[in-house]
Every structure is written in structure tokens, then in C-alpha cells.
């Protein structure tokens, strides 16, 4: 049980009156590559953002590597942890965003070293060495002194991924990282992610790339209207969907 990297129990999230997550459970072990698929509004991105407390959640529990995320029981009531604590817990995960969100006023190297210096308290030289190693991993060492405005979308996303994994998180979160890219740039990013998967990184991806999900993931979660509708091995799920909604979804996403 405690060998799970990620444990989500009965996760509930409301935006005002609307309940977006209606009791989601999930468990991931070291090395799992899990893809979350579903139509927009199904709650997939919200679930991801609850894991690193970019969104608050109303009920349920999330544990990363055994640690309770975001909330704890104090004096019998559920209370939010302190900002300090939550900031520290966020370093357990790394996230790559659809809009990349690179800091525009910093070079690629500086984007990567910021977290290493400020959060991991590394010295400047050590941080730069680590950053360059990861930038090389994603194939962008030659561009380490470029600013985001000087990089293509695919290059920016690769730097963003390097920024996240340089922090050596226990779990990597990918939020539709190829959706904002021109088609010819999607592949370079997928290659980097496949590479990381091969190396055993534990990853949770929200994605529309069905072929990628089919090829690379150990498990696929299909979400519909705030709940997990179907879950399993993509090689079985995609060929023989158990629920009608998944069958519809697969048809509409033109998966072969």
C-alpha cells in the first residue's frame, strides 16, 4: 500500500455550485505511465491540478510517497496546511503546462536553475551544471542562453519539461503539453516524454494524443463527467471498450 507513489481517495472538487470531481480514486506505483483521456469538462485537468495543490479540493485525500497533500486533520477538523508546507510539497511533483509558462525574462538555463537555487538551495555553479545536464537530455544544450521568445513552441515545451524534471520529482504531471503546438512540433516533445518513460519516470499525463497513449502508457484512465468511467490497459481498452461512452469517445477522436 505504501509503496504507491500516488494515492488518490474519494477526491471531490466543486467550482461554486458545480461539482467537477465526484469521488475519484487512483493509485500509481513507481514507473507507472498513466494517461488520462476524456472530453473537455470531464475533470481531467482539474484532477491533475489538485495533486500539486494548484487547485484546492473539497473532500478526499491525496498522498504522494506516503505524505498527505494539502490538508490534514487538526483537532478533529480538516484544515489546510500552511503555505510553507504546501510549497514544500509541491516540489514532490513536477508539472509541464499546455501553455509552457516559461519565465520570459530568463534564459533557458535560468528557467531551470531558479527552482534548484531557491527551493533545493543549490549553489549557483552546481545548479548550472545540473540544468545543463537536463537541457542536454531534452536536446537543447545549444540553446541554453536563449530566451523563450527566441525559441519555437516545441523547444519551449522541452525546456519546460527540463525545468520540471531537474527538480527530481517523485511524480511528473503533464497537462496537455502538446495541445498548443503546431503539428510538426508535437513529435519532438513526445519523443522526450517517451524517453523519460523508458528510463522509469513515474508520469501522469492528461492528453489528446491517443496513439501516444496507446503506445506508451502502462494504464489509461477514461474520465467522464467528474468520474472515472473506465480504466485499464490501453491495448485492451481501445480495442474492446467496456463502456458505451468510451466507445463513442474513441470513435470521435478518430483513433484507428
Amino acid at each position, binding site marked *: 500500500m505504501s509503496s504507491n507513489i500516488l494515492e488518490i481517495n474519494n477526491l471531490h472538487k466543486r467550482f461554486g455550485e458545480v461539482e467537477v470531481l465526484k469521488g475519484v480514486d487512483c493509485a500509481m506505483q513507481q514507473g507507472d505511465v498513466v494517461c488520462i483521456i476524456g472530453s473537455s469538462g470531464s475533470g481531467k485537468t482539474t484532477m491533475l491540478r489538485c495533486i500539486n495543490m494548484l487547485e484546492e479540493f473539497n473532500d478526499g485525500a491525496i498522498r504522494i510517497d506516503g505524505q498527505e497533500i494539502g490538508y490534514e486533520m487538526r483537532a478533529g477538523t480538516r484544515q489546510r496546511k500552511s503555505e510553507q508546507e504546501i*510549497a514544500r510539497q509541491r516540489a514532490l511533483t513536477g508539472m509541464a503546462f499546455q501553455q509552457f509558462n516559461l519565465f520570459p525574462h530568463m534564459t533557458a538555463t535560468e528557467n531551470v536553475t531558479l527552482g534548484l537555487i531557491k527551493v533545493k538551495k543549490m549553489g549557483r555553479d552546481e545548479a548550472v551544471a545540473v540544468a545543463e545536464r537536463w537541457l542536454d537530455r531534452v536536446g537543447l544544450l545549444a540553446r541554453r542562453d536563449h530566451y523563450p521568445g527566441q525559441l519555437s513552441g516545441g523547444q519551449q515545451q522541452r525546456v519546460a519539461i527540463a525545468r520540471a524534471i531537474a527538480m527530481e520529482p517523485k511524480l511528473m504531471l503533464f497537462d496537455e503539453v502538446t495541445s498548443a503546438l503546431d503539428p510538426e512540433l508535437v513529435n519532438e516533445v513526445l519523443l522526450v516524454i517517451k524517453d523519460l518513460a523508458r528510463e522509469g519516470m513515474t508520469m501522469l499525463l492528461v492528453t489528446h494524443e491517443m496513439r501516444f497513449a496507446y503506445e506508451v502508457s502502462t494504464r489509461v484512465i477514461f474520465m467522464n463527467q467528474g468520474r472515472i468511467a473506465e480504466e485499464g490497459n490501453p491495448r485492451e481498452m481501445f480495442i474492446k471498450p467496456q463502456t458505451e461512452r468510451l466507445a463513442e469517445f474513441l470513435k470521435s477522436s478518430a483513433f484507428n
Partner: protein
Amino acid sequence: MDFTFSEFIQQFWIARGPIASGLGVTLAIAASAIILGTVLGVGVGLALAYGARPIRWLARAYTDFLRGTPVLVLVLAGYYVPSAIGIGLSPLQAGVVALAVFCSSHVGEIVRGALQAIPKGQIDAAKAIGLTFGQTFTSVLMPLALRQVLPAWVNTAAEIVKASTLLSVIGVGDLLLASQEIIARNFMNLPFYFLAGFLYFSINYAIERFGRFVERKTTIPS
């Protein structure tokens, strides 16, 4: 006109002391008001962008009230009111405070606009790597906001220099008042008002050029 150019030069030479000291006072007023106003204004801007609702509401009322009031009214109020409630301020001090308060309302709006223009994704990315709000502010928000604030701030500085002329109305010995005193003696209205205008123009033009220089230097390469 009943005076010649050489007579003007002669009078100008006689008056060079008062003109220089008036110029000095003008620059001192402007600098003090800009510095005080900027410090205050950054606080107001932070309150408007990130403050809890009551603080934000207070800052909003402060800015809206000040921006709907003419600067002259602020200067006059600043001159008359403190002595009535027992605070002894010299006209110079009162004027600088009035201008600083005026400056803070503009700077507050500028800072708020710049902070709110930063895409939310930047804060998300900073959170995702584990930065606290303080770290996010110093490393990400402030540098980005600063680039947007700078041109508008330089503009505000020029406005303050222009508004400093209003202190002549409450008797502060700035460049305009010095010019008026000189004119009262030698009746050379045209040349000396023209001279004053020219000097103010030069200062503001220099500020404008400086602003463009700063803008060029801080643009992020793309």
C-alpha cells in the same frame, strides 16, 4: 514690444541667480514628490492587485478619489488643511506631500495594471516548482511587472515636474515663481515666460528621451 534682445540678455544675466535657484527648487520638489509618491504608490498597487477585499476596497477608494480631483485642488487643500488641524507644514512641505499623494495614485494604478497583466500561468509555473509567494514575487512577478511599469512611470515623473509649477500658486519659490518675480521687476513678460517654458520643456524632453532609452535597454530579446 518695448525692449530689445540685448536688454533681455542683460536682464537674464542679472537674474541668473534667482533662475538657477528656482530651477533647483523645482527639481528638488519633483524629485522628492516622485520618490515619496513611488514608494507609496507601489504599496497601493500591491494592495489593489493582491490585497484582501477590505484593503483592496480602501486602496480603490483612495485611487479613485485622488484621480477624480484636479492637482491644483490637492495642492490648495494640502496648503490650507494641515494648519487648520494643527499640523505645521511649510508651503514647500505641504506642496510636496500633495504632489506625492497625487503621484502615488498614478503609480498605484500603473503597478496594479502591470501585476495583473502577468499571465496566471506564470504563477502556476512558479508554484509547480515549489516557490513560495515571496520568492515568486521577487524572481518572477516583480521583474516582469517592472518592464511594463517603467515607461508609464517615466511618464508620471514628467507629469510631476509639470505639476510642480502649481506650487508657485501657494508661494513656493520654484522656477515659475522666480520668473514671475523677475517679470514683476522688469516687465519683460514675453521673454521670461518663454524662458520658463523653454526650461520646463527641456527638462521634460530629457525625461522623455531617458524613458525611451530605458525602454530599449530593458526589452527582452525575442
